[in-house]
């Protein structure tokens, strides 16, 4: 005699794999179980998370030249915001979002700056978090990558060289532009030109959609401002005096903009290791003006 039994048909599990996953950044379809987008190399975890949450994440770009301090700024910002600070509260989404904060803080606690961000997009740190502001009822979902400065400039000079940056800048809701105060103080003009290029690039992206000034909020942050105390007193005046071209461009192309000054290392020394040249050493950690630009930006989005 044969007993009748119910046998589960497991083949339905394969149906899930047959459905492609669109990259949240560039929109290209990928296999279900792929880790990185085959086109732009952004993590597909962003897409999976965005799909499971009702709210579509907004994108915030942190841009600047190589060694402008993007990694340190973002890492410190996240570390400060993930603590209870009263004004803005941030909750990381996904374990990968904590890596940047972890690397930065570990490096700073060991009296060194984090290593240079590699140019390869698959090795960038992406942060997906939920930001809650006291004055706003609903929390916001945010995506912020830490991209290499050279890659940003390469993309601006040769559009589509980095598909991740191209798509990200097209879709991002707000921008933090970091200007290296140390290099401005040393008389270099490259910060000025780089930021002017970026401002032009961003405003032209917006003008394709709507004619006139761009409404995308832009925070111009003078990083490493601890090397120039007057910058903290009045960042806009500092911008007008030290980077007049940039100040003029921002006025003419954007409606929502703000100038800020920030600093993480209160004091920096240099260590000369044999064969490795001078290496910058943060002598004490004294974060100033880190949260303000972000808070201003989030309120504007």
């Amino acid at each position: 005699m044969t007993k009748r039994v119910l046998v589960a048909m497991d083949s339905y599990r394969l149906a899930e794999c047959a459905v492609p996953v669109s990259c949240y950044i560039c929109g290209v379809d990928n296999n279900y179980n792929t880790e990185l987008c085959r086109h732009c190399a952004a993590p597909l975890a962003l897409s999976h998370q965005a799909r499971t949450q009702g709210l579509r994440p907004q994108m915030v770009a942190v841009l600047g030249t190589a060694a402008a301090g993007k990694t340190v700024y973002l890492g410190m910002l996240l570390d400060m915001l993930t603590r209870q600070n009263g004004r803005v509260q941030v909750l990381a989404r996904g374990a990968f979002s904590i890596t940047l904060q972890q690397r930065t803080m570990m490096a700073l606690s060991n009296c060194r700056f984090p290593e240079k961000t590699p140019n390869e997009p698959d090795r960038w740190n992406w942060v997906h978090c939920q930001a809650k502001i006291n004055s706003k009822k609903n929390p916001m979902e945010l995506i912020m990558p830490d991209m290499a400065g050279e890659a940003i400039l390469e993309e601006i000079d040769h559009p589509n060289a980095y598909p991740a940056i191209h798509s990200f800048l097209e879709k991002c809701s707000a921008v933090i532009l970091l200007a290296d105060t140390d290099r401005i103080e040393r008389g270099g003009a490259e910060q000025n030109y780089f930021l002017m290029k970026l401002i032009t690039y961003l405003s032209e992206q917006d003008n394709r959609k709507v004619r006139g000034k761009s409404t995308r909020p832009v925070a111009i942050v003078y990083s490493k401002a601890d090397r120039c105390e007057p910058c903290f007193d009045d960042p806009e005046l500092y911008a007008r005096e030290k980077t007049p071209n940039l100040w003029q461009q921002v006025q003419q192309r954007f409606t929502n903009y703000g100038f800020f000054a920030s600093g993480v290392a209160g004091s920096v020394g240099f260590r000369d290791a044999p064969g490795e040249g001078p290496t910058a050493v943060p002598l004490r950690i004294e974060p100033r003006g880190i949260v303000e630009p972000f808070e201003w930006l989030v309120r504007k989005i």
Partner: protein
Amino acid sequence: MATLSPKDLHLSVSKSQDTAGTVAVEQAIFTSARTSNKDGYQLVAWSPGISAEDARLLAVWGPAHDSMIVSDPSDVSLNFHPLGQGKFCVSRTMLGTAEYSGRGGRQVYTHCFILSTEGFTRFQNDPFRVVSAALAIRDLRPGSELPTDLPTLKMLPSGPPVEPAMIRLFDAPLQQQMLVSWTHMALTTNKLTFTGSYNDRFLAVFFNLLPVSVRPQFSFSTRLRYSPRRDFRLIGLGSDIEEQKKASRQEGCSVFQFDAPARSPEMSRHPWATWVQVALCHREHDEAARMIGEVPLSARLEDLPSIGNRFRVAMSGRRMREAAASPAPVESVVVPETNADRDELLTLVERALEGDVAALERLNSTWCAQPDRQMESLREECARHFVKLAQERTIEPGTKASVAIEILSLILRTSI
């Protein structure tokens, strides 16, 4: 360390321009520096023949900070890839001086050589010959100061399409087995990562064993971290476990472990790999080189199975004719006529497994000299006996017995 300066290179160019038959090779240096254009990784110097599109592509392929797996400043990574339509780039990467921005770490310094399709064909489409020619002209290590511009080099290609001496380097059975497995994997996968203790000579021999026309399709990198942005076909990851895990998570990546190469079943092996095995086992290096060198330049990768089959049949046929013309030494060969001879062969297998070199030699000569149907059935019987014995024993890797197993696998054409 010699400094690479445009002035010095001009001198070498003027010398080589006098030599007839040189090939114009463009060059560029991609590294991290603060220049008047920008800070960070960029093309710091290039020769006049580098177009804006070439420069853009070089920046895309160029390895940037922390891209090298090794941290030894003397270690070198060799890379080869197409550069747009009709151009190829052969590059040599190593660690340079300290990163300019004071953030720690060394700059990753890459010297690129760009050739047109015609120029590369003059080098028999072999990237290793380009590197050798470049090293013959200059020291390619980074100097204390970076050059700002570079001249177009005139390099002199030399040598036949296939160097028999290179093939002869892989004479040991273990090396031959590895090369056969590698050839099979490289020809049957779209992206192959290789791990463990390999050296560049192995890749050089692999290129040497390919027809000239298909060599450009095997872009490769050695000792660079895996990045989907750099679309290499063969990717050397050394012994870095994290990089191996990362690469294996990517779509369509197969892995070849140099320290423990997996044998491919004979029936499903790529015919070109089978032919390589036949050529290596018969030690027909010159003949193999001649045959590969005669493959027309119109041959494509898809044609390799049929060409491989044809070569194998031709080589085996020639050996059979030669064997028929000159009788084999009777003393060393077992002629199976009775069950006693069959038993003798099985005993030889057992002795060979113990590491008896004479037994190995007799077994080898038995199947080389007597390729007929009766011998084939005996070979299968011996192979079964060998597999049974090998599975019963516990054999430590690197011992005499493990080497004997490798050799017997080749002689009896079986795998455990």
